[in-house]
């Protein structure tokens, strides 16, 4: 098993058309699994996997009196659907906050974008160095980074909170000034960045390490600095991997509750939609119809991001992890 996947192969697995020549060997395997039974299985799983989401969607479209009196599947027998719940959730003061969930959605976006970009760029740089600028201990460092994935985040909350609110001091010398936590996204961004780095470096390293060696060597011969190589060769070629990690990180940050609760609180100035939804689910179990609308709203943006970037997603994660 000596076949190293070439860059072309790795970066373009979607070239199915070219592979579909006279004798497509990969199909031989698939044929073994191809039968009406197999199709039925896939469809069954798909339906099974979709039911919970459909249930949520249908619930969010039903009027309150229906939601409390019968299961959501009854809506297919007696359809009475509308967008009123969404209007209430977005714009009404139904939860006692002016503007409903709208400011929280804005916060979620404002948190998620930098919290995706920062770790992405920092991890790409680190991954490049670990992969191509070997130095003494770089292997060990890489393994340590990998192992750090396992650290339970809860353990970091208090030390980080203390750092952000009081800064770091050595005697009377201030090493890091207090950032202050009130009404600022910065602590949330930084925390997400820290927590994302181990997985990001690991995944991006796998990809960047597989970039063609001759390309790098040619650049070095041309006298390009590491910064230039990183910017003009590594970054463009790693686009698929960056995109796939970006999706991951975006989904992760968007759905995060722990960091949001600790560093942003329920303050409408900075708190994201998850922390708001968590409050709602606790305060009023009789508002299932509004809750489900809120939950569905919170899913729309990540879904859009996923569908927009999904073709990169596959390519990026794939590279570097296929080996003989």
């Amino acid at each position: 098993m000596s076949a190293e996947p070439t860059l072309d192969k790795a970066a373009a697995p979607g070239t199915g058309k070219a592979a579909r020549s006279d004798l497509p060997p990969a199909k031989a395997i698939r044929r073994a699994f191809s039968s009406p039974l197999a199709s039925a299985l896939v469809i069954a799983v798909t339906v099974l996997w979709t039911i919970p989401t459909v249930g949520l969607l249908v619930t969010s479209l039903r009027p309150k009196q229906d939601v409390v009196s019968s299961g959501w599947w009854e809506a297919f027998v007696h359809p009475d659907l509308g967008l009123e719940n969404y209007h209430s959730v977005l714009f009404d003061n139904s939860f006692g906050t002016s503007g409903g969930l709208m400011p929280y959605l804005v916060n979620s976006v404002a948190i998620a974008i930098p919290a995706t970009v920062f770790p992405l760029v920092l991890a790409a740089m680190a991954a490049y160095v670990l992969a191509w600028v070997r130095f003494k201990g770089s292997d060990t460092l890489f393994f340590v980074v990998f192992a750090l994935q396992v650290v339970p985040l809860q353990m970091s909350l208090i030390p980080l909170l203390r750092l952000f609110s009081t800064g770091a001091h050595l005697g009377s010398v201030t090493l890091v000034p207090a950032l202050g936590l009130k009404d600022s996204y910065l602590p949330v961004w930084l925390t997400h960045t820290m927590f994302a780095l181990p997985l990001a470096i690991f995944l991006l390293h796998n990809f960047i390490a597989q970039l063609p060696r001759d390309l790098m060597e040619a650049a070095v011969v041309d006298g390009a600095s590491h910064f230039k190589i990183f910017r003009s060769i590594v970054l463009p070629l790693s686009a698929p991997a960056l995109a796939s990690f970006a999706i991951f990180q975006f989904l992760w940050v968007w759905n995060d509750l722990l960091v949001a609760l600790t560093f942003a609180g329920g303050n409408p100035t900075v708190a994201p939609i998850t922390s708001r939804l968590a409050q709602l689910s606790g305060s009023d179990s009789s508002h299932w119809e509004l809750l489900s609308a809120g939950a569905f709203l919170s899913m729309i943006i990540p879904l859009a991001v996923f569908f927009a970037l999904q073709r990169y997603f596959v390519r990026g994660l794939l590279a570097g992890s296929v080996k003989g």
Partner: protein
Amino acid sequence: MTTPVTTGRRRLLAVPAVLALALTAACSNSSSDGGGGGGGSASALTGDCAKYQAYAGHSGTKVSMYASILSPESDSLEKSWSEFTTCTGIKIVYEGSNDFESQLPVRVAGGNAPDLAIIPQPGLLAQMVKSGKVVKPPQQTVENENKWSPVWKQYGSVNGTFYAAPMSANMKSLVWYSPKAFKAAGYEVPKTWNDLVALSDKIARAGGEAKPWCGGIGSGTATGWPATDWLEEVVLGTYGGDVYDQWISHQVKFSDEKITTAMKTVGDWMQNPAWVNGGFGDVKTIATTTFQDAGTPILSNKCAMLQQASFYRAQWPKGTNIGPDGDVFAFHLPAVNPQVNTPVEGGGEFLAAFSDRPEVQAVQNYLSTSEWASSRVKTSPGWVSANQGVDKSLYTDPIDKLSAESLTDPAATFRFDASDLMPAAVGSGAEWKALTAWFAEGQSIQKTASDIDAAWPQ
């Protein structure tokens, strides 16, 4: 007064905090027309605002407040001090969270404590005081607090030092029922424990769909707390205040025969298959039914009675007629042992400060007055103060009135919720878990008790 609020918020992110503060101050100055909002100095407040003169001089400041009270109750809370904030120019930034109990210690330890926190558990208050971050209340608050009965001061104190003034009180020793259904069936409200048992048997024997009791102890991560209330009611109603106090301090252990006997009484009552769980199913459903849902079968006559606190009032659907002749009402849970004088188990909330800035103390002072308590009572029902200065005729709601009378009754045996006073490892940990297992898995009383004792911090 919507303008200063929105402009203030919009600007906050754009400019450094100091600048924002200055601008907000300037803003509320210029826009506080008729309101008489006062300037940076303690200028005289006029008109309707004159009564807030004592708190003037902090216009443009902000006080952050953190609590477990969520909307819609928190809306009433904010409304109750809206006149104060308008007149004094002190903005109270309120944040409610259902992760309050776990988030407050994190924020305090992390140096990001709120200015004020409304703490419902004296145990948590003690924990916070131990951190050294709680600031003692100003003299005026201490004086205002004297209008509460002395026992409350004790619950707001840690090791004899007074830290947090009580804000509200609630009455736990209530049994919800439907006066209409009782009348139709010819049942009488029981006055003694024996009457209660006899009535329950009668309803159970009457057959049909209805069972005498329903209950639910589900409450997310706090699942189990309603069961601790049942045990507390029985301990207090069987042995009186002294044993109850010794139980809290662990001089009387859970595995003590007194407490296991009380657990047996609870078992005969809420784990009696013939008596529970009306409208839901068997005994085990008590563990999976949320406390919020527990009372709904009373409205459809599938359940006759529910033991829950006065704040359960908020759970009835809109349009439910609450009153002595209405759809639902509550009676005082009788003492198990008639020798014990009117046992009243209560809960409450305490205002602790983590800052001694003058505006924080102004808010503290105001919230400890009977004027504020009256304002909160007038805002909406479902809230009771044990402050003697609150005119009882202000309570429009029959449940509030009933609770207020019991809570201020000098003859009653009043005690605070025991699990809230125990160390957190027990009161919001092992006891919840063990009692839930007792209901859900039929675990033995002996094991339940010894599990809880084992968790007691040495």
